[in-house]
Protein backbone atom coordinates (compact mmCIF):
# COMPACT_ATOMS: atom_id res chain seq x y z
CA UNK A 1 0.00 0.00 0.00
CA UNK A 2 1.42 3.35 -0.93
CA UNK A 3 -1.20 6.04 -0.42
CA UNK A 4 0.09 9.54 -1.03
CA UNK A 5 -1.72 12.23 0.88
CA UNK A 6 -0.68 14.69 -1.75
CA UNK A 7 -1.04 12.66 -4.89
CA UNK A 8 0.85 14.86 -7.25
CA UNK A 9 3.42 16.98 -5.51
CA UNK A 10 4.57 20.23 -7.06
CA UNK A 11 7.58 20.31 -9.32
CA UNK A 12 10.60 19.22 -7.34
CA UNK A 13 12.42 22.27 -6.14
CA UNK A 14 15.65 22.65 -7.99
CA UNK A 15 18.50 24.46 -6.32
CA UNK A 16 18.50 26.52 -9.51
CA UNK A 17 21.43 28.25 -11.10
CA UNK A 18 21.89 31.96 -11.62
CA UNK A 19 23.65 32.04 -14.95
CA UNK A 20 21.87 31.08 -18.13
CA UNK A 21 22.72 27.60 -19.37
CA UNK A 22 22.38 25.46 -22.45
CA UNK A 23 21.04 21.96 -21.93
CA UNK A 24 22.20 19.90 -24.87
CA UNK A 25 20.29 16.70 -24.10
CA UNK A 26 16.58 16.95 -23.31
CA UNK A 27 14.25 14.06 -24.10
CA UNK A 28 10.74 15.04 -25.12
CA UNK A 29 8.19 12.22 -25.03
CA UNK A 30 4.83 11.61 -26.61
CA UNK A 31 1.89 11.97 -24.23
CA UNK A 32 -0.17 9.31 -26.01
CA UNK A 33 0.48 6.53 -28.48
CA UNK A 34 -1.46 8.35 -31.15
CA UNK A 35 0.23 11.69 -30.79
CA UNK A 36 2.08 11.27 -34.10
CA UNK A 37 -1.03 10.43 -36.10
CA UNK A 38 -1.63 13.97 -37.38
CA UNK A 39 1.83 13.91 -38.94
CA UNK A 40 1.63 10.44 -40.48
CA UNK A 41 -0.07 9.54 -43.74
CA UNK A 42 -3.27 7.52 -43.22
CA UNK A 43 -1.59 4.62 -44.94
CA UNK A 44 0.70 4.24 -41.93
CA UNK A 45 -2.08 4.40 -39.34
CA UNK A 46 -3.55 1.18 -40.63
CA UNK A 47 -0.13 -0.32 -41.29
CA UNK A 48 0.84 0.24 -37.68
CA UNK A 49 -2.41 -1.28 -36.48
CA UNK A 50 -2.17 -4.28 -38.75
CA UNK A 51 1.52 -5.07 -38.82
CA UNK A 52 3.12 -3.04 -36.03
CA UNK A 53 6.80 -2.18 -36.18
CA UNK A 54 9.64 -4.62 -36.66
CA UNK A 55 12.87 -3.51 -35.11
CA UNK A 56 16.31 -4.92 -35.88
CA UNK A 57 16.42 -6.63 -32.55
CA UNK A 58 14.14 -8.82 -30.50
CA UNK A 59 12.48 -7.89 -27.25
CA UNK A 60 9.98 -5.80 -29.09
CA UNK A 61 7.89 -4.98 -26.08
CA UNK A 62 10.51 -2.68 -24.68
CA UNK A 63 14.17 -1.99 -24.29
CA UNK A 64 16.40 -5.00 -23.70
CA UNK A 65 16.89 -4.19 -20.02
CA UNK A 66 14.35 -2.73 -17.63
CA UNK A 67 15.58 0.70 -16.58
CA UNK A 68 16.38 1.84 -13.08
CA UNK A 69 13.23 3.96 -12.87
CA UNK A 70 9.97 3.88 -14.87
CA UNK A 71 10.62 5.05 -18.45
CA UNK A 72 14.26 5.48 -17.37
CA UNK A 73 13.04 8.75 -15.89
CA UNK A 74 12.93 10.78 -12.73
CA UNK A 75 10.00 9.72 -10.58
CA UNK A 76 9.17 13.32 -9.82
CA UNK A 77 8.86 14.22 -13.50
CA UNK A 78 5.40 12.77 -14.24
CA UNK A 79 3.35 15.70 -15.54
CA UNK A 80 0.36 16.59 -13.34
CA UNK A 81 -1.99 16.16 -16.29
CA UNK A 82 -0.82 12.56 -16.82
CA UNK A 83 1.32 10.96 -19.50
CA UNK A 84 4.94 9.89 -19.30
CA UNK A 85 7.82 12.01 -18.07
CA UNK A 86 8.93 14.59 -20.61
CA UNK A 87 5.57 14.70 -22.42
CA UNK A 88 4.29 18.05 -21.15
CA UNK A 89 5.82 21.31 -22.26
CA UNK A 90 4.25 23.34 -19.46
CA UNK A 91 5.54 20.97 -16.81
CA UNK A 92 8.98 20.85 -18.41
CA UNK A 93 9.03 24.63 -18.28
CA UNK A 94 7.97 24.72 -14.66
CA UNK A 95 10.17 21.90 -13.42
CA UNK A 96 13.27 22.36 -15.53
CA UNK A 97 13.57 25.18 -18.07
CA UNK A 98 12.53 28.07 -15.82
CA UNK A 99 14.18 27.21 -12.48
CA UNK A 100 17.38 26.08 -14.18
CA UNK A 101 17.61 29.15 -16.36
CA UNK A 102 17.84 27.15 -19.58
CA UNK A 103 18.49 29.57 -22.42
CA UNK A 104 18.94 26.88 -25.07
CA UNK A 105 17.52 23.37 -24.83
CA UNK A 106 18.38 20.81 -27.50
CA UNK A 107 15.71 18.14 -27.95
CA UNK A 108 16.81 14.59 -28.64
CA UNK A 109 13.70 12.47 -29.20
CA UNK A 110 14.15 8.74 -28.65
CA UNK A 111 11.76 5.98 -29.77
CA UNK A 112 11.69 7.39 -33.25
CA UNK A 113 11.71 5.44 -36.49
CA UNK A 114 15.42 4.78 -36.05
CA UNK A 115 15.90 1.05 -35.67
CA UNK A 116 12.79 -0.02 -37.59
CA UNK A 117 13.46 -2.44 -40.46
CA UNK A 118 10.73 -1.25 -42.83
CA UNK A 119 12.62 1.72 -44.21
CA UNK A 120 9.57 3.48 -45.64
CA UNK A 121 7.86 3.30 -42.29
CA UNK A 122 11.08 4.35 -40.52
CA UNK A 123 11.36 7.40 -42.74
CA UNK A 124 7.67 8.31 -42.26
CA UNK A 125 7.91 8.09 -38.47
CA UNK A 126 11.15 10.08 -38.34
CA UNK A 127 9.66 12.81 -40.51
CA UNK A 128 6.52 12.84 -38.35
CA UNK A 129 8.67 13.21 -35.24
CA UNK A 130 10.36 16.21 -36.83
CA UNK A 131 7.01 17.88 -37.57
CA UNK A 132 5.86 17.04 -34.05
CA UNK A 133 8.99 18.64 -32.55
CA UNK A 134 8.17 21.89 -34.29
CA UNK A 135 4.47 21.97 -33.51
CA UNK A 136 4.53 20.70 -29.96
CA UNK A 137 7.83 22.08 -28.71
CA UNK A 138 10.03 24.50 -30.65
CA UNK A 139 7.24 26.71 -32.02
CA UNK A 140 5.82 27.04 -28.51
CA UNK A 141 9.05 27.78 -26.65
CA UNK A 142 11.83 29.54 -28.50
CA UNK A 143 14.42 28.25 -26.04
CA UNK A 144 13.92 24.76 -27.40
CA UNK A 145 15.55 23.54 -30.60
CA UNK A 146 14.99 20.22 -32.30
CA UNK A 147 17.21 17.52 -33.71
CA UNK A 148 16.42 16.19 -37.16
CA UNK A 149 15.83 12.48 -36.72
CA UNK A 150 16.37 10.33 -39.77
CA UNK A 151 15.88 6.74 -40.89
CA UNK A 152 19.60 6.22 -40.43
CA UNK A 153 19.92 2.78 -42.02
CA UNK A 154 18.71 4.19 -45.33
CA UNK A 155 21.26 6.87 -46.13
CA UNK A 156 19.39 8.13 -49.16
CA UNK A 157 16.07 8.80 -47.43
CA UNK A 158 17.92 10.13 -44.38
CA UNK A 159 19.78 12.64 -46.54
CA UNK A 160 16.50 13.71 -48.14
CA UNK A 161 14.97 14.39 -44.73
CA UNK A 162 18.02 16.47 -43.73
CA UNK A 163 17.79 18.51 -46.93
CA UNK A 164 14.08 19.03 -46.29
CA UNK A 165 14.89 20.57 -42.88
CA UNK A 166 18.03 22.47 -43.93
CA UNK A 167 17.79 26.14 -43.08
CA UNK A 168 14.84 25.59 -40.73
CA UNK A 169 15.77 27.40 -37.53
CA UNK A 170 13.70 24.98 -35.46
CA UNK A 171 16.52 22.46 -35.83
CA UNK A 172 20.13 22.70 -34.71
CA UNK A 173 21.50 19.21 -35.36
CA UNK A 174 20.93 15.83 -36.93
CA UNK A 175 20.44 12.97 -34.50
CA UNK A 176 21.95 9.51 -34.82
CA UNK A 177 22.26 6.77 -32.24
CA UNK A 178 25.39 4.82 -31.43
CA UNK A 179 24.01 1.27 -31.73
CA UNK A 180 23.36 0.76 -35.40
CA UNK A 181 23.41 -2.11 -37.82
CA UNK A 182 27.04 -1.31 -38.64
CA UNK A 183 29.71 0.94 -37.13
CA UNK A 184 28.92 4.54 -37.95
CA UNK A 185 31.88 5.26 -40.19
CA UNK A 186 30.73 2.83 -42.88
CA UNK A 187 29.77 4.05 -46.31
CA UNK A 188 26.05 3.36 -46.02
CA UNK A 189 25.87 6.32 -43.62
CA UNK A 190 27.88 8.74 -45.74
CA UNK A 191 24.89 10.36 -47.49
CA UNK A 192 23.84 11.50 -44.01
CA UNK A 193 27.20 13.15 -43.42
CA UNK A 194 27.18 14.75 -46.82
CA UNK A 195 23.74 16.26 -46.30
CA UNK A 196 24.53 17.41 -42.76
CA UNK A 197 27.73 19.10 -43.86
CA UNK A 198 25.88 20.78 -46.68
CA UNK A 199 23.15 21.97 -44.28
CA UNK A 200 25.75 23.16 -41.77
CA UNK A 201 24.20 20.97 -39.07
CA UNK A 202 26.34 19.14 -36.50
CA UNK A 203 25.52 15.48 -35.96
CA UNK A 204 24.65 14.37 -32.44
CA UNK A 205 25.45 10.71 -31.78
CA UNK A 206 23.38 9.74 -28.78
CA UNK A 207 24.22 6.60 -26.84
CA UNK A 208 21.66 3.84 -27.32
CA UNK A 209 19.81 2.41 -30.29
CA UNK A 210 18.33 -0.77 -31.69
CA UNK A 211 20.86 -1.95 -34.24
CA UNK A 212 20.28 -5.60 -33.40
CA UNK A 213 23.79 -6.22 -32.11
CA UNK A 214 24.49 -7.23 -28.53
CA UNK A 215 24.97 -4.40 -26.13
CA UNK A 216 28.59 -5.21 -25.38
CA UNK A 217 31.33 -6.33 -27.70
CA UNK A 218 31.28 -9.78 -26.14
CA UNK A 219 27.57 -10.47 -26.02
CA UNK A 220 24.50 -9.82 -23.92
CA UNK A 221 25.40 -9.02 -20.32
CA UNK A 222 23.35 -9.88 -17.24
CA UNK A 223 22.73 -6.47 -15.74
CA UNK A 224 21.43 -3.03 -16.63
CA UNK A 225 24.52 -1.58 -15.01
CA UNK A 226 26.53 -3.31 -17.73
CA UNK A 227 24.36 -1.74 -20.38
CA UNK A 228 25.00 1.66 -18.81
CA UNK A 229 28.76 1.32 -19.15
CA UNK A 230 28.32 -0.47 -22.47
CA UNK A 231 27.27 2.88 -23.92
CA UNK A 232 30.80 4.16 -23.77
CA UNK A 233 32.20 1.00 -25.45
CA UNK A 234 29.71 1.39 -28.24
CA UNK A 235 30.47 5.07 -28.64
CA UNK A 236 34.18 4.25 -28.85
CA UNK A 237 33.49 1.79 -31.66
CA UNK A 238 31.44 4.41 -33.47
CA UNK A 239 34.10 7.08 -33.06
CA UNK A 240 36.97 4.82 -34.12
CA UNK A 241 34.99 3.82 -37.18
CA UNK A 242 34.21 7.43 -38.10
CA UNK A 243 37.86 8.37 -37.86
CA UNK A 244 39.35 5.29 -39.52
CA UNK A 245 36.92 5.09 -42.43
CA UNK A 246 37.96 8.61 -43.34
CA UNK A 247 34.64 10.36 -42.71
CA UNK A 248 36.40 13.51 -41.50
CA UNK A 249 38.77 13.47 -44.49
CA UNK A 250 35.83 13.26 -46.86
CA UNK A 251 33.67 15.75 -44.93
CA UNK A 252 36.15 18.21 -43.47
CA UNK A 253 33.51 20.60 -42.15
CA UNK A 254 31.52 17.93 -40.33
CA UNK A 255 31.03 18.48 -36.60
CA UNK A 256 29.91 15.74 -34.27
CA UNK A 257 28.65 15.63 -30.73
CA UNK A 258 29.04 12.54 -28.58
CA UNK A 259 25.90 12.61 -26.48
CA UNK A 260 25.45 10.80 -23.18
CA UNK A 261 28.36 8.40 -23.32
CA UNK A 262 30.81 10.11 -20.98
CA UNK A 263 34.08 11.60 -22.12
CA UNK A 264 36.69 10.27 -19.69
CA UNK A 265 37.58 7.56 -22.18
CA UNK A 266 38.36 10.01 -24.98
CA UNK A 267 42.06 10.57 -24.25
CA UNK A 268 42.90 6.89 -23.91
CA UNK A 269 41.05 5.96 -27.09
CA UNK A 270 42.92 8.69 -28.95
CA UNK A 271 46.28 7.65 -27.50
CA UNK A 272 45.70 4.05 -28.45
CA UNK A 273 44.58 4.90 -31.94
CA UNK A 274 47.64 7.13 -32.46
CA UNK A 275 49.95 4.43 -31.24
CA UNK A 276 48.68 1.73 -33.57
CA UNK A 277 48.32 4.23 -36.39
CA UNK A 278 52.07 4.80 -36.28
CA UNK A 279 52.55 1.15 -37.26
CA UNK A 280 49.41 0.47 -39.31
CA UNK A 281 48.83 3.64 -41.27
CA UNK A 282 49.49 1.77 -44.50
CA UNK A 283 46.19 0.01 -43.97
CA UNK A 284 44.30 3.30 -43.89
CA UNK A 285 46.29 5.51 -46.27
CA UNK A 286 43.29 7.83 -46.75
CA UNK A 287 44.02 9.30 -43.32
CA UNK A 288 46.28 12.32 -43.61
CA UNK A 289 46.54 13.05 -39.93
CA UNK A 290 46.79 11.22 -36.64
CA UNK A 291 43.47 9.87 -35.34
CA UNK A 292 43.66 12.11 -32.27
CA UNK A 293 43.78 15.19 -34.47
CA UNK A 294 40.51 14.30 -36.16
CA UNK A 295 38.96 13.70 -32.76
CA UNK A 296 40.11 17.02 -31.36
CA UNK A 297 38.99 18.94 -34.43
CA UNK A 298 35.63 17.35 -35.12
CA UNK A 299 34.19 16.15 -31.83
CA UNK A 300 32.21 17.87 -29.08
CA UNK A 301 31.03 16.09 -25.92
CA UNK A 302 27.94 16.51 -23.79
CA UNK A 303 28.57 16.32 -20.07
CA UNK A 304 25.87 14.04 -18.76
CA UNK A 305 27.02 11.57 -17.53
CA UNK A 306 29.91 13.56 -16.09
CA UNK A 307 32.74 11.39 -14.94
CA UNK A 308 33.02 11.71 -11.21
CA UNK A 309 36.47 10.53 -10.11
CA UNK A 310 37.59 10.60 -6.51
CA UNK A 311 40.03 13.41 -7.29
CA UNK A 312 38.72 16.40 -9.16
CA UNK A 313 42.23 16.90 -10.56
CA UNK A 314 41.74 13.75 -12.60
CA UNK A 315 38.55 15.20 -14.03
CA UNK A 316 40.25 18.49 -14.82
CA UNK A 317 43.21 16.75 -16.49
CA UNK A 318 40.82 14.84 -18.72
CA UNK A 319 39.01 18.04 -19.62
CA UNK A 320 42.31 19.78 -20.33
CA UNK A 321 43.04 17.11 -22.94
CA UNK A 322 39.58 17.37 -24.48
CA UNK A 323 39.47 21.15 -24.24
CA UNK A 324 37.17 23.36 -22.15
CA UNK A 325 35.85 24.63 -25.47
CA UNK A 326 34.58 21.17 -26.41
CA UNK A 327 32.21 20.34 -23.57
CA UNK A 328 28.49 20.99 -23.82
CA UNK A 329 26.49 20.96 -20.62
CA UNK A 330 23.56 18.54 -20.59
CA UNK A 331 21.13 17.32 -17.95
CA UNK A 332 19.43 14.42 -19.78
CA UNK A 333 16.09 15.66 -18.40
CA UNK A 334 13.77 13.91 -17.58
CA UNK A 335 15.86 10.74 -17.38
CA UNK A 336 16.87 9.29 -14.06
CA UNK A 337 20.58 9.93 -14.44
CA UNK A 338 19.82 13.64 -14.76
CA UNK A 339 22.58 16.06 -13.71
CA UNK A 340 21.61 19.02 -11.57
CA UNK A 341 23.29 22.10 -13.12
CA UNK A 342 24.15 23.78 -9.85
CA UNK A 343 25.76 20.65 -8.41
CA UNK A 344 27.63 19.09 -11.27
CA UNK A 345 30.82 21.08 -11.69
CA UNK A 346 33.40 20.88 -8.89
CA UNK A 347 34.78 24.11 -7.46
CA UNK A 348 37.97 25.51 -8.90
CA UNK A 349 36.92 26.25 -12.47
CA UNK A 350 37.69 29.71 -13.85
CA UNK A 351 34.80 31.98 -14.75
CA UNK A 352 35.72 31.86 -18.43
CA UNK A 353 35.71 28.06 -18.46
CA UNK A 354 32.44 27.89 -16.54
CA UNK A 355 30.83 30.23 -19.01
CA UNK A 356 32.08 28.14 -21.93
CA UNK A 357 30.99 24.92 -20.23
CA UNK A 358 27.48 26.01 -19.34
CA UNK A 359 26.54 28.09 -22.35
CA UNK A 360 29.01 29.57 -24.82
CA UNK A 361 30.32 26.36 -26.41
CA UNK A 362 26.79 25.26 -27.22
CA UNK A 363 25.77 28.64 -28.57
CA UNK A 364 28.79 28.67 -30.81
CA UNK A 365 28.44 25.10 -32.05
CA UNK A 366 24.74 25.50 -32.75
CA UNK A 367 25.20 28.85 -34.45
CA UNK A 368 23.43 30.96 -31.85
CA UNK A 369 26.34 33.04 -30.62
Amino acid at each position, binding site marked *: *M*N*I*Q*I*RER*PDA*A*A*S*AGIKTAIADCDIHPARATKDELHPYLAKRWHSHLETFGVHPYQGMMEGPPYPK*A*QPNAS*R*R*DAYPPEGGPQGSSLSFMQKQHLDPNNVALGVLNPLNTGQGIRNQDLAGAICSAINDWQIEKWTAKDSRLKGSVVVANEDGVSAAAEIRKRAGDKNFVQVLLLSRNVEPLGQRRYWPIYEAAQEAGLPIGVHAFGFGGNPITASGWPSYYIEEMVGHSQCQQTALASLVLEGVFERFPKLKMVMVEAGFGWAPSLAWRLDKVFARLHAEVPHLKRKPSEYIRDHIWWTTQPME*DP*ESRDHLFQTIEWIGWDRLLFATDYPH*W*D*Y*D*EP*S*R*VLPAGVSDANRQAFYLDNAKQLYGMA
Partner: protein
Amino acid sequence: MARHVIAPVDELPPGSRKFLEIDGRPIAVFNVKGEFFGLLNRCPHQGAALCEGPLIGLASSSDPGEIEYTKLGEILRCPWHGWEFDIRTGQSYCDPRRFRVRAYPVSVEPGTNVVKGPYVAETIKVAVESDYVVVEL
Protein backbone atom coordinates in the same frame (compact mmCIF):
# COMPACT_ATOMS: atom_id res chain seq x y z
CA MET B 1 12.31 23.37 19.60
CA ALA B 2 9.02 24.36 18.04
CA ARG B 3 6.29 21.76 17.62
CA HIS B 4 4.14 21.76 14.54
CA VAL B 5 0.89 19.86 14.35
CA ILE B 6 0.64 18.56 10.83
CA ALA B 7 -2.36 16.24 10.63
CA PRO B 8 -4.86 14.19 12.58
CA VAL B 9 -3.64 10.61 12.59
CA ASP B 10 -6.64 9.49 10.56
CA GLU B 11 -5.48 11.60 7.67
CA LEU B 12 -2.12 9.88 7.53
CA PRO B 13 -2.89 6.16 7.36
CA PRO B 14 -0.18 3.53 7.05
CA GLY B 15 1.51 3.70 3.65
CA SER B 16 0.83 7.40 3.20
CA ARG B 17 3.11 10.35 3.28
CA LYS B 18 2.57 14.08 3.57
CA PHE B 19 4.67 16.88 2.12
CA LEU B 20 4.79 20.25 3.83
CA GLU B 21 6.94 23.25 4.32
CA ILE B 22 7.85 24.29 7.85
CA ASP B 23 9.89 27.43 8.48
CA GLY B 24 10.81 27.46 4.79
CA ARG B 25 12.13 23.93 4.95
CA PRO B 26 10.63 21.16 2.80
CA ILE B 27 9.64 18.27 5.04
CA ALA B 28 7.95 14.95 4.41
CA VAL B 29 6.29 12.79 7.02
CA PHE B 30 5.68 9.08 6.42
CA ASN B 31 3.46 6.55 8.10
CA VAL B 32 5.25 3.23 7.65
CA LYS B 33 3.13 0.43 9.07
CA GLY B 34 1.92 2.65 11.91
CA GLU B 35 5.28 4.23 12.70
CA PHE B 36 5.86 7.87 11.80
CA PHE B 37 9.06 9.23 10.27
CA GLY B 38 10.03 12.68 9.11
CA LEU B 39 12.73 13.64 6.67
CA LEU B 40 14.05 16.77 5.12
CA ASN B 41 12.80 16.55 1.57
CA ARG B 42 16.17 17.18 -0.06
CA CYS B 43 18.61 14.52 -1.21
CA PRO B 44 22.19 15.04 0.02
CA HIS B 45 23.49 13.95 -3.39
CA GLN B 46 22.25 16.49 -5.95
CA GLY B 47 19.30 17.96 -4.09
CA ALA B 48 16.28 16.09 -5.49
CA ALA B 49 13.03 16.14 -3.56
CA LEU B 50 14.05 12.88 -1.92
CA CYS B 51 10.67 11.94 -0.49
CA GLU B 52 9.01 11.68 -3.91
CA GLY B 53 10.83 8.37 -4.22
CA PRO B 54 9.37 4.91 -3.55
CA LEU B 55 9.75 3.03 -0.28
CA ILE B 56 11.41 -0.26 -1.02
CA GLY B 57 13.41 -2.91 0.81
CA LEU B 58 17.12 -3.42 1.12
CA ALA B 59 18.71 -5.98 -1.18
CA SER B 60 21.90 -7.32 0.27
CA SER B 61 24.08 -10.27 -0.43
CA SER B 62 26.65 -12.22 1.53
CA ASP B 63 27.87 -14.06 -1.55
CA PRO B 64 27.11 -13.92 -5.28
CA GLY B 65 23.87 -15.82 -5.72
CA GLU B 66 22.73 -15.27 -2.13
CA ILE B 67 20.29 -12.41 -1.95
CA GLU B 68 18.41 -11.18 1.08
CA TYR B 69 15.68 -8.62 0.96
CA THR B 70 15.09 -6.97 4.31
CA LYS B 71 13.73 -3.73 5.81
CA LEU B 72 10.74 -3.98 3.49
CA GLY B 73 9.12 -0.58 3.05
CA GLU B 74 11.78 1.16 5.12
CA ILE B 75 14.27 2.17 2.47
CA LEU B 76 13.60 5.39 0.60
CA ARG B 77 14.97 5.49 -2.93
CA CYS B 78 15.72 8.91 -4.38
CA PRO B 79 13.55 9.74 -7.41
CA TRP B 80 16.59 10.88 -9.38
CA HIS B 81 19.67 8.67 -9.17
CA GLY B 82 18.22 6.05 -6.91
CA TRP B 83 20.48 6.39 -3.88
CA GLU B 84 18.90 4.56 -0.98
CA PHE B 85 18.33 5.89 2.53
CA ASP B 86 17.11 4.19 5.69
CA ILE B 87 13.94 6.00 6.68
CA ARG B 88 14.66 5.41 10.38
CA THR B 89 18.05 7.04 10.45
CA GLY B 90 18.48 8.85 7.14
CA GLN B 91 21.66 6.83 6.61
CA SER B 92 22.61 6.27 2.97
CA TYR B 93 23.40 2.72 1.98
CA CYS B 94 25.38 3.41 -1.08
CA ASP B 95 27.77 6.05 -2.24
CA PRO B 96 28.28 5.18 -5.86
CA ARG B 97 31.50 7.15 -6.04
CA ARG B 98 33.23 5.45 -3.17
CA PHE B 99 31.50 2.16 -3.65
CA ARG B 100 33.62 1.36 -6.64
CA VAL B 101 36.92 1.79 -4.83
CA ARG B 102 35.59 0.29 -1.64
CA ALA B 103 37.03 2.99 0.52
CA TYR B 104 34.67 1.84 3.23
CA PRO B 105 35.33 -1.53 4.75
CA VAL B 106 32.46 -3.95 4.50
CA SER B 107 30.92 -4.29 7.93
CA VAL B 108 29.02 -7.47 8.55
CA GLU B 109 25.75 -6.73 10.28
CA PRO B 110 22.97 -9.12 11.13
CA GLY B 111 21.61 -10.31 7.84
CA THR B 112 23.49 -7.81 5.71
CA ASN B 113 26.90 -6.78 4.54
CA VAL B 114 25.84 -3.59 2.87
CA VAL B 115 28.32 -0.74 2.88
CA LYS B 116 26.84 2.33 4.47
CA GLY B 117 27.76 5.45 2.61
CA PRO B 118 28.85 8.67 4.24
CA TYR B 119 25.74 10.58 3.22
CA VAL B 120 22.95 11.00 5.69
CA ALA B 121 19.57 12.49 4.87
CA GLU B 122 18.30 14.77 7.59
CA THR B 123 15.62 13.14 9.71
CA ILE B 124 13.03 15.05 11.68
CA LYS B 125 11.43 13.93 14.94
CA VAL B 126 7.77 13.06 14.63
CA ALA B 127 5.37 12.37 17.50
CA VAL B 128 1.72 11.44 17.74
CA GLU B 129 -0.06 13.49 20.43
CA SER B 130 -3.61 12.61 21.31
CA ASP B 131 -4.14 11.50 17.73
CA TYR B 132 -2.36 14.36 15.99
CA VAL B 133 0.91 13.92 14.16
CA VAL B 134 3.41 16.48 15.38
CA VAL B 135 6.79 17.36 13.92
CA GLU B 136 9.57 18.81 16.04
CA LEU B 137 11.78 21.27 14.22
